[in-house]
């Protein structure tokens, strides 16, 4: 006989870990105790050596799918003599510094799915079925420790049967805080026009009937409302687009669990399928087949579609009952936080949705869908949301004091960091609007409260007009300003702390650079806290300031004029207007110097007539990428690389304009060639710089690398030249990654260089 004590940390609370340990001990005939400590689980056990060895291994290897246990300590029991026969769950121990983990929302687990489909089960077709292994968490927690009374389920009194399950350590629903059943749990309600239908089955029937008839139905899910409509009905989809309004941005489509419909529509690689089936149940971008049969306006101009599988029992029921793909798009104006409140949804969506499916389980805080794209064989996040967040990561070195990093302005996320922990919030939206700003402030307060940490410093972007920067400046805390592209570079470097000397390509739309110009095509050398700009793109002046982001034709004008070429090329713009803009450009009136690669992509898209004005960010480059996918062979044009007076290596984009002018080449070919040329331009900068400085690894960062073609070609070219090249894996390469990058920058700047 032997006795051992383990302390297990990581994500072990709110995931059914103690009952799992309890059942494991019974199975292996191990005696002892398990209890919750401050964010950890403490286990003491005695038994024969073989049993204990098997127990130790299974503690990690067989842990519940959604747990992320880490063995922190192994030692002698504190009170071996007290261990009697049998295994017990002891009351939680309080009073130590908390090491909380806020669990994300989980998809419906296979056990619950089986019950959902079993007519003999008392939760047959119950839209709120869950267990200790699945169901909402982050979106219904009001406070920690995670306990039913501190969730939005507090108002639902457990029926005797649910209570028995909840209190039985051997039951799958032992301390499953959101546990519910048709007798005691939340219910659906359908509202369509004057009709109000209560009851789960009646509401589902009414909703599915509306969907079949081509209507738009707003459905309250886990983290907010979705708008659903028949994805094969062009009239329905076009109407949803016109009313939302969302003229072009691709819409996500919900497919049933069995993938039968999805396989008809898309070519799935194993990486796509694994990402779709992952517990986070994100939206995954998948390549569309020709003749996919979906309404054309689901994703006009693109050959990739964002799809998701049901992540909640309600979505399972809707997808199965409807029996076909459903458009499922967040029910909020683009860039705003998802709607969570019944009255607000009815008010804001009055002109958009024909009907509503509400439920009476309050959503404590919104979480939009996560979005992943498979790039270079790996599913990488474009948006952090439901299921992935709060995203908990570790820092290589502990922070001297707790830090709040408030991110950028668009696609905002915030990060709370203390000791060697970082927690990243879900996508909060673009901070132009009041709702996103309220959510931003609320999430900041929330994270600090939930994790029991109070920030003693704030990191923010150096752009003075970002709402996040202004918020930071208004706090009574020391402010650490981080240059936009330094944060982008550090977001990648922070994921791979082993590398010391980085060459980071920070390519994005625009961000403020230390010289007052709008950067976005930068090569930075160094490491977090110590970046030095070593390369860039030939600068140009963007006419009309902030409007360039919405109007790619301005980038086209900027590049052509900068290169001494005429613009406009057609009669689409009145002569007087073009002359007025040209005069302003010559006088530098409301023009800004920029080196942003995103604007170069915009210019190419505009000069290929793919877009003039856009209704969503990245529209031009996305169309360009989609067009390039049809190309056969691709020839690059050489973009000259030369040092400027300051010693900066500058790539000249001007040969791209000649390529675009070439009447002998097809647009498809031009689109592909532009990608290849820019990928090779990065390679050329990397090779040139490596001749002068030691480079351990190359980082690709910034929203431009959401472009799969560019990212994959660049990674492949760098790899072939022997570079260790990295693109964000858990952190989005776009501005959603800035908060993490700011944390990494702060950590480096405030630690003593060894």
């Amino acid at each position: 006989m032997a006795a051992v004590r383990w302390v297990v940390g990581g994500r072990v609370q709110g995931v059914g870990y103690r009952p799992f340990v309890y059942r494991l001990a019974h199975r292996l005939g191990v005696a002892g105790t398990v209890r919750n400590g401050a964010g950890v689980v403490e286990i003491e056990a005695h038994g024969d050596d073989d049993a204990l060895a098997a127990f130790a291994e299974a503690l990690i290897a067989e842990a519940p799918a959604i747990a992320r246990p880490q063995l922190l300590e192994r030692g002698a029991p504190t009170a071996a003599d007290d261990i009697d026969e049998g295994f017990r769950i002891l009351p939680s121990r309080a009073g130590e510094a908390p090491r909380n983990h806020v669990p994300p929302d989980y998809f419906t687990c296979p056990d619950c799915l089986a019950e959902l489909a079993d007519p003999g089960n008392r939760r047959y077709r119950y839209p709120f079925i869950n267990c200790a292994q699945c169901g909402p968490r982050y979106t219904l927690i009001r406070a920690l420790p995670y306990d039913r009374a501190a969730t939005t389920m507090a108002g639902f009194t457990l029926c005797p049967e649910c209570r028995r399950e909840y209190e039985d350590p051997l039951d799958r629903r032992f301390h499953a805080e959101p546990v519910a059943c048709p007798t005691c749990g939340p219910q659906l309600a359908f509202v369509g026009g004057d009709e109000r239908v209560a009851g789960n089955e009646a509401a589902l029937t009414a909703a599915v009937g509306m969907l079949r008839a081509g209507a738009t139905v707003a459905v309250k899910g886990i983290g907010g409302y979705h708008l659903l409509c028949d994805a094969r009905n062009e009239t329905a989809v076009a109407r949803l687009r016109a009313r939302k309004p969302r003229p072009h941005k691709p819409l996500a489509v919900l497919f049933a669990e069995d993938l039968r419909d999805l396989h008809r529509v898309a070519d799935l690689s194993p990486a796509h399928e694994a990402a779709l089936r992952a517990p986070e149940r994100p939206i995954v971008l998948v390549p569309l087949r020709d003749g996919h049969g979906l309404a054309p306006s689901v994703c006009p101009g693109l050959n990739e579609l964002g799809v998701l599988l049901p992540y909640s029992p309600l979505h399972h029921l809707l997808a199965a009952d409807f029996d076909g793909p459903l458009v499922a798009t967040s029910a909020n104006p683009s860039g705003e936080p998802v709607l969570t409140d019944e009255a607000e949804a009815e008010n804001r969506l009055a002109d958009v949705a024909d009907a509503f499916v509400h439920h009476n389980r309050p959503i404590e805080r919104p979480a939009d869908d996560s979005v992943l794209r498979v790039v270079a064989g790996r599913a990488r996040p474009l948006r952090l949301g439901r299921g992935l967040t709060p995203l908990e990561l570790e820092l290589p070195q502990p922070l001297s004091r707790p830090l709040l990093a408030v991110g950028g302005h668009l696609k905002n996320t915030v990060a709370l960091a203390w000791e060697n922990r970082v927690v990243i919030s879900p996508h909060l939206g673009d901070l132009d609007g009041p709702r996103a700003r309220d959510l931003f402030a609320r999430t900041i307060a929330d994270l600090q409260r939930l994790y029991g940490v109070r920030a003693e410093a704030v990191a923010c972007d150096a752009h003075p007009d970002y709402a996040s920067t202004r918020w930071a400046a208004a706090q009574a805390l020391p402010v650490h300003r981080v240059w936009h592209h330094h944060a982008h570079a550090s977001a990648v470097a922070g994921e791979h702390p082993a590398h010391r000397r980085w060459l980071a390509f920070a390519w994005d739309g625009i961000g403020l650079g230390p010289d007052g110009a709008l950067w976005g095509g930068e090569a930075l050398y160094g490491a977090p806290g110590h970046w030095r700009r070593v390369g860039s793109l030939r600068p140009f002046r963007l006419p009309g300031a902030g409007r360039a982001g919405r109007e790619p034709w301005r980038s086209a004008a900027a590049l052509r004029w900068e290169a001494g070429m005429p613009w406009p090329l057609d009669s689409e713009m009145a002569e007087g207007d073009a002359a007025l803009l040209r005069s302003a450009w010559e006088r530098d009136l409301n023009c800004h110097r920029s080196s942003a690669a995103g604007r170069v992509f915009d210019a190419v898209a505009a000069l290929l007539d793919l877009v003039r004005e856009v209704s969503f960010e990245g529209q031009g480059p996305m169309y360009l990428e989609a067009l390039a996918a049809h190309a056969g062979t691709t020839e690059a044009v050489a973009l000259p690389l030369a040092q400027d007076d300051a010693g900066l290596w500058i790539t000249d984009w001007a040969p791209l304009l000649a390529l675009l002018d070439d009447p002998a080449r097809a647009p498809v070919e031009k689109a592909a060639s532009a990608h290849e040329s820019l990928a090779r331009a990065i390679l050329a900068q990397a090779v040139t710089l490596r001749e002068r400085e030691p480079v351990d690894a190359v980082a690709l960062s910034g929203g431009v690398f959401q472009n799969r073609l560019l990212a994959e070609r660049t990674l492949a070219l760098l790899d072939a030249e022997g570079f260790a090249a990295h693109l964000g894996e858990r952190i989005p390469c776009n501005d959603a990654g800035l908060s993490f990058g700011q944390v990494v920058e702060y950590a480096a700047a405030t630690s003593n260089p060894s």
Partner: protein
Amino acid sequence: MQDTHVSLAHGNGGRYMRELIEELFARHLANPRLDVDADAVAIPLPPGDVLVTTDGFTVQPLEFPGGDIGALAVHGTVNDLAVAGARPHYLTLNVFVEEGFEIAALERIVASLARATREAGVAVAAGDTKVLRRGEGGGLYLATTGVGIREPGRRLGLREVRAGDRVLVSGPVGDHGVAVMLAREQFGLRGDLRSDAATVLPLTEALLGIDGLRFMRDPTRGGLATVANEIVRATGLDLHLDEALIPVREPVRAVCEMLGYDPLYLACEGRVVAVVAPEATEGALAAWRELPGGTEAALIGTLSETRNRARAILRTPLGGERVLEELEDDPLPRIC
């Protein structure tokens, strides 16, 4: 007066200066109160609260479509008194003219200034002229101080504003800002772009008789968005503006779109923003629309209790919402 350009001698207190004052300023600005020989003058005033305001004028270029610095120096000060609920009676005028300035241009500007005083029914009671060395001034600076009378006990101001009150604007915004910018950059004149510079006295007097008038302001520097932020800051209320309701003239909109400016942040010199009780909305709009300067008056927003921190929120035509920020010096684009 023989000289064609202003010289330093015009500012030295001697004969040249006397000639300039008598033959140019006094001739145009003549009124019973103006006594160029007196050190100080008495200004008889009707009963009421005496209001005083002062302003400096440095606009470039000095003359632009729809106005000039002279007219602006009157309107600016008269309008500040008018939106405070006062009737302006007197102005003082300080002139800082640069050596070498063309006398003919000075005369045009002073004549325009005089015309503006007659329109507003005010008299210039005192004045002073200084000549700046060549290169030390932008040609001409003006400063005016205005004195007006307000009915005693009139309650007007941001302290009177309540949740539920409505926000009105007397006409299209951005005209002055665009006209001056285009003139300054010498883009070539466009007949459809003129400053709105005018006295707002008829507009403010039309509202003074209306019950439920709470507050008035002329949206000059920083434009409508800046007034919106002033209202929000002082009242602690949310201000919801509906972009589709805010009048902007088509040529102004077109130039703003082309050059990337937001008309809500551009100066007006002849408009009034008013806050009124909800039940006073129709009456106020009707009163304005009868006036030549108020035909395009519009209801543009509502004040409400805030759930979080008070903001000016613009509802866009696409149904989105945008916070109207306080103006930054030379805002930088932030779209990434």
